[in-house]
């Protein structure tokens, strides 16, 4: 199953596609770049005309013990919602490093942040619309606890108030399952449904990222 990782980014140019083309930095080299206009899949989608810069990069993963791996990673920058996505088939140790090197490969016209900067209250709303909540943990004075087990505080008081540490939820759409995990400041999406990724991202953009 492909793992899609989302975080915030910003581009300081309208011609990001050109800046990215053929770029390389460190372990990252850009294999292909193109752009498309988004196709809305959800109702009341606020970014209906946004341009999406997409492409594939090759990541040379180093390893102390083996020869290392060459890993293709698909990426996307969504200009309307300022979301940056990477999609990879295998597990890699640091998307942060990939994102940083990709940004440098684009001659610094792209800046990828480490986190989503999503508004916490809207993030709660999004997670609670899921069909299945597998786990949500929050921080209580630095201690991670399940959201329904905060000492002396009702679940209703925790929701939309406390800082989320981890969340794993499942969405079901048209019989397809989409698994969404919020962890460490970024969102991961896993699904076998080809349009599932785009579908859940559009829901996320609508619920969390639009003003």
């Amino acid at each position, binding site marked *: 199953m492909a793992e899609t990782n989302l975080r915030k980014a910003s581009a300081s140019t309208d011609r990001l596609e050109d800046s990215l083309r053929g770029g390389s930095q460190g372990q990252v080299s850009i294999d292909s770049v193109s752009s498309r206009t988004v196709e809305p899949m959800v109702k009341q989608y606020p970014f209906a005309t946004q341009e999406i810069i997409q492409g594939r990069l090759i990541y040379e993963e180093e390893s102390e013990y083996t020869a290392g791996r060459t890993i293709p990673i698909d990426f996307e920058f969504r200009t309307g919602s300022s979301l940056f996505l990477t999609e990879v088939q295998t597990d890699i140790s640091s998307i942060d490093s990939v994102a940083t090197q990709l940004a440098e490969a684009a001659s610094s016209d792209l800046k990828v942040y480490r986190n989503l900067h999503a508004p916490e209250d809207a993030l709660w709303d999004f997670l609670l619309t899921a069909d299945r909540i597998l786990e949500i943990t929050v921080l209580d*004075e630095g201690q991670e606890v399940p959201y329904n087990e905060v000492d002396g505080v009702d679940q209703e008081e925790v929701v939309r108030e406390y*800082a989320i540490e981890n969340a794993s939820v499942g969405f079901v759409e048209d019989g397809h399952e989409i698994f969404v995990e919020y962890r460490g400041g970024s969102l991961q999406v896993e699904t076998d449904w080809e349009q599932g990724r785009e579908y859940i991202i559009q829901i996320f953009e609508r619920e969390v990222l639009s003003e």
Partner: protein
Amino acid sequence: MGAEHDTSILSSIRVVLLGYIDHFTNTNAYYLVSLVVPVLIGISGLLRDTQNQWAVRALSVPILIIALVQGYRSGRPFGIKISCTPTHLVSGKREPDKPSESRNNILIQNNSTKIHGEIQLIRFNNSFDIRFDSSSEIGVELETKPRSEHSYDPESNRLSCADVSERRFPIKLDVYPQGSVQAAGRYHSMTIRDSKTGHILTDFEVIDVRT
């Protein structure tokens, strides 16, 4: 007017007074006043004429007022309290790092340290504008924007809101190294400041303990 999580009037006054006194007693103006006023009163005791005595004593008043005003201007804002707990992962679960918290330290043990904090505005304070600063070898970024009504600019690292509907909310900061220990050294700092005055609201020593 009435926002959520309002502190009582008494508590708000207490917070402001304690904060002010704590700051004022450390200013140069305070030391000056604590030297000059007793001297003036001493001198007044040496004079024979009652009118002159009181005239000299009365000189203390403008000096005291100027010192108090200077204390306020150099220390404000007093209507916002930020408390932070550094955390670490213990067997995959996030826990508060109490020893570090008591020493006002943040330890960097890998490429990300999360700080769980809480911001409380006093009852009569409806707005805030704060900035996260760090010494150049480390970075600090918000994981989530606390509330949809807030504005977060990751470039200037500024979090603000002109009219809050909630006076207490959690923040989650991501503190990370931007180089190796060999290149960047071990001792750094992180501060949270008021954007308008530049005054420090809370600060930490950041220690890189990686090998």
